[in-house]
């Protein structure tokens, strides 16, 4: 049953495509044989000139002036954001996850605490070695740089904001992806 329906649809598509090509030929004056009744209808439409209302030049020029005044190069932050959010869902997800991962990685590596110093200024290097050093009362090694340079608070905040923005892109991308999937499914069911 389904095969018959498919075959019928395929035949219709092929016929319609041929009709479209023939219409093109008629327009170019290359088609002489118009025995098909649908082609004769098409020829009649082609021969009857389309409606051509007069163009209101005053409206045309005033609109042009109005539009030219609005014409600005898009370089604002808002336009960049608009462009980002108008990306395809899969690209949104990709960029969102990339931005989030990079921002979080930078944030974590720079804010992770360094090795904790001992009371006497020694720093545990390896298991066992530390004990041996303590027992022999070896000269105290100079204390290692225990704290990394403090990262400015503004930079941390900026990283958190970037990570948040990435997550937002990711979420929007995922939501749009599922919406698109549902829409495609609906369209497929409809056709």
């Amino acid at each position, binding site marked *: 049953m389904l095969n018959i329906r498919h075959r019928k649809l395929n035949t*219709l*598509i092929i*016929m*319609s*495509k041929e*009709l*479209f090509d023939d*219409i093109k030929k008629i*327009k170019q004056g290359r088609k002489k044989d118009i025995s098909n*009744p*649908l082609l004769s*209808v*098409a020829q*009649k*439409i*082609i*021969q*009857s*000139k*389309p*409606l*051509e*209302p*007069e*163009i*209101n030049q005053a*409206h*045309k020029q005033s*609109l*042009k002036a109005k*539009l*030219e005044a*609005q*014409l*600005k*190069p*898009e370089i604002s932050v808002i*336009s960049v954001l*608009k*462009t980002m959010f*108008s990306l395809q869902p899969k690209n949104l997800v990709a960029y969102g996850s990339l931005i989030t991962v990079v921002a979080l990685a930078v944030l974590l590596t720079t804010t992770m605490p360094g090795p904790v110093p001992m009371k006497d200024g020694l720093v545990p290097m390896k298991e066992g070695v530390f004990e041996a050093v303590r027992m022999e009362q070896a000269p105290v090694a100079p204390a290692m740089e225990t704290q990394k340079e403090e990262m400015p608070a503004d930079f941390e905040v900026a990283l958190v904001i970037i990570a948040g923005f990435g997550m937002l892109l990711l979420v929007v991308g995922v939501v749009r992806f599922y919406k698109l999937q549902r829409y495609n499914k609906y369209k497929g069911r409809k056709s």
Partner: protein
Amino acid sequence: MFEADEEKNLIRKIQKGDKEAFGQVYDFYYDKIFRFAFRRTSSQETAEDITSEVFLSAIKSIGRFRYKRNNSFKAWIYQIANNKICDYFRKNYRSPTIELEKAGQLSEKREKSPDAIFAAKSDREEINKVIAQLSGNDQEVVNLTFFEDMKAPEIAEILDCSVNSVYVRLHRALKKLKEFLVID
């Protein structure tokens, strides 16, 4: 008619804010969009309003327009026009009749002999009357195919459907037109 590369350059210039490039594209497309809107709405004023809306929307979102695989600026701006026309019909539907005749009279000026005027007018009126009887979707396909000289992929992009669907819609529209012509 612009070459593909020429049009791409013009659009890029418009995106950077070039008024001269915009002027060229506007002058080329204004008449087309206006006639496209007029053929559907059959009212000069409504067609002018729709044309204004189309260009205002286009100028707002031209920055986001990108050339992808098969798309063109022409298809993009016609798609906006088509959406605006659909919005118009959704808001206030009324059957198109009166001003079609008026427009027919306007374009009469170019005809020469009275016989030719009569023959052409009766043909055109008949065809217009019959096309107006088609559904909105069918009218769109017929207008775009016959009066806008568009290719099937462009029509498909404007109507947001597949190329095969365009072929089939046109086939069905012509079948209906044939029936209407026989009945009339």
